[in-house]
């Protein structure tokens, strides 16, 4: 296997230009939303709003303003599939369409997916959605096709501020830790890494530097594997089957004797 590759997205230098979104759409030939007719979100300068089947990169605008707008700050984060080391989507996929590649990334094979949508509800981050053009579940592939010929992903290539860093995950961890140290030294004590730790789903191959709580960026504080309750649910169901079976046995067996 090649080295594990991933993204380190440093949100503190993101300027919200959405070049990554455009580059991603361009390279992956993703269709425009709403047939290309412009629709405005109405409550934000962000008009693409979320990750879905036709937005595999999405720059989230967190607009924190006081009601009189005298004070405020912008938090900008280019969101993407986390390429979890323990990937819930891959676990539940019943067709085998979702695979782990030689780069330790998670890719949905569009020619295998049959659109059952199990992975959409299973993803702890709400990353996956159906692409209406293909009728299959789609998300960031970490530009698997580009990686195979030694190119970096389109979004990282396009990012003008190096908010999106691409490379071997081990190198990215070093880079990210150095960046957090530098920010702390400069007085930005809130800076921390989200998903770099193995405790979060075995580690996210695509992790982030944040300066506020995860939920502020619409990231789950404690993402979990979807299969975590399968065993306990299975056993309670087996217990239920035994009780129901026993009730049936008693109902139908003793009847003849009683009446």
């Amino acid at each position, binding site marked *: 296997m090649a080295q594990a590759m991933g993204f380190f997205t440093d949100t503190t230098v993101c300027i919200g230009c959405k070049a990554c979104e455009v580059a991603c759409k361009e390279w992956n030939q993703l269709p425009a939303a709403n047939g290309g007719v412009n629709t405005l979100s109405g409550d934000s300068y962000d008009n693409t709003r979320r990750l879905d089947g036709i937005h595999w990169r999405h720059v989230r605008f967190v607009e924190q303003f006081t009601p009189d707008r005298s004070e405020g700050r912008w938090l900008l984060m280019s969101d993407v599939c986390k390429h979890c080391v323990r990937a819930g989507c891959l676990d539940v996929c*019943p067709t085998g369409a979702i695979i782990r590649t030689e780069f330790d990334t998670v890719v949905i094979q569009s020619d295998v997916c049959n659109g059952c*949508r199990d992975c959409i509800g*299973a993803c702890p981050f709400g990353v996956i959605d159906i692409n209406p053009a293909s009728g299959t579940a789609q998300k960031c592939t970490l530009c698997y096709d580009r990686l195979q010929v030694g190119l970096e992903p389109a979004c990282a290539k396009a990012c003008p501020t190096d908010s999106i860093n691409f490379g071997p995950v081990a190198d990215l961890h070093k880079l990210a830790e150095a960046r957090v140290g530098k920010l702390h030294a400069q007085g930005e004590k809130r800076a921390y890494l989200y998903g770099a730790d193995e405790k979060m789903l075995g580690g996210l191959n695509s992790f982030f530097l944040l300066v506020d709580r995860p939920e502020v960026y619409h990231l789950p504080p404690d993402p979990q594997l979807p299969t975590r309750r399968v065993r306990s649910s299975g056993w309670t*169901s087996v217990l239920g089957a035994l009780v129901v079976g026993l009730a*049936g046995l008693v109902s139908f067996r003793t009847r003849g004797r009683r009446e």
Partner: protein
Amino acid sequence: MNPPASTLFTASPEWQWLIIGYFFLGGIAGGAYVLAALIDLFGDPLDRPLARLGYLVTFPVIAVCGVLLIADLRRPLRFWHMMLQSETLRPMLKTWSPMSLGSWALLLFGGIAFLSFLAALADDGRGRWPRLAILRPPGLLGTLLALAGGVLGFFVAGYTGVLLTATNRPIWADTSLLGLLFLVSGASTAAALLALLGRRRAPSSRTGLHALERFDSVLLVLELITLVALVVSLGGMARIWLGAWGALLVVGVVGLGILVPLALYRRSLHAGGLSGAAAAVLVLVGGFLLRVVIILSSDGV
């Protein structure tokens, strides 16, 4: 301040009416086979018409389930990718994925239900191949088939709840009791349907019909206990049900679907009449509403 629940940051798979229909009918099919097998294996010979009714109901209902599931796929023609790896044609099975395991269970259960359906027809003297009656108990082959079908019937009735739990969606992934709830409700709705159809189709099994009503009463109590335990297990997430969904759950599922039928069954067992039929209809409505609430209340978050 506590951080918000992580299941609130996920996307809906948009499983809606087709899946609600499948969960409802799948519960009935699985439950009906279990009941038919129980009656056939352990019940009074006088009740064989009721068991036959169970087999006759199961196969058409499970066939409809397959159609609903395929229709719900965004690429329906690729439904077989659930069973075979599309590139190599090797079997596709992930025992840890409820949907993968469920697809296989459904296929096997459908096959067994079909054989039992033929056997029930043959037993009735209506089939073209009377010798197929050996596929029904008390013969060895029939007994083995009924046992396998009964186990798979339980699986089909209950795995749908586990399937919902194996996501990261609010409500669904916040409890371990959905499989149990759907299994009990599936068996209960199946008993109600058999009691209802049996009134016309197997009137000679009057005492068997009463046994079905008694059995369903026990299951309704069990369902109520499970439902209360489920709400408790949800903890703070149960807040999603404060509002219209909660009202539907309390009035539709608990009131109309559990408490009123319990009273009506009681009356039917003592006084007879139509109250048993009314109870059965309400149990079916309640079972359907239960799935509507569980699925759509999470979908809206």
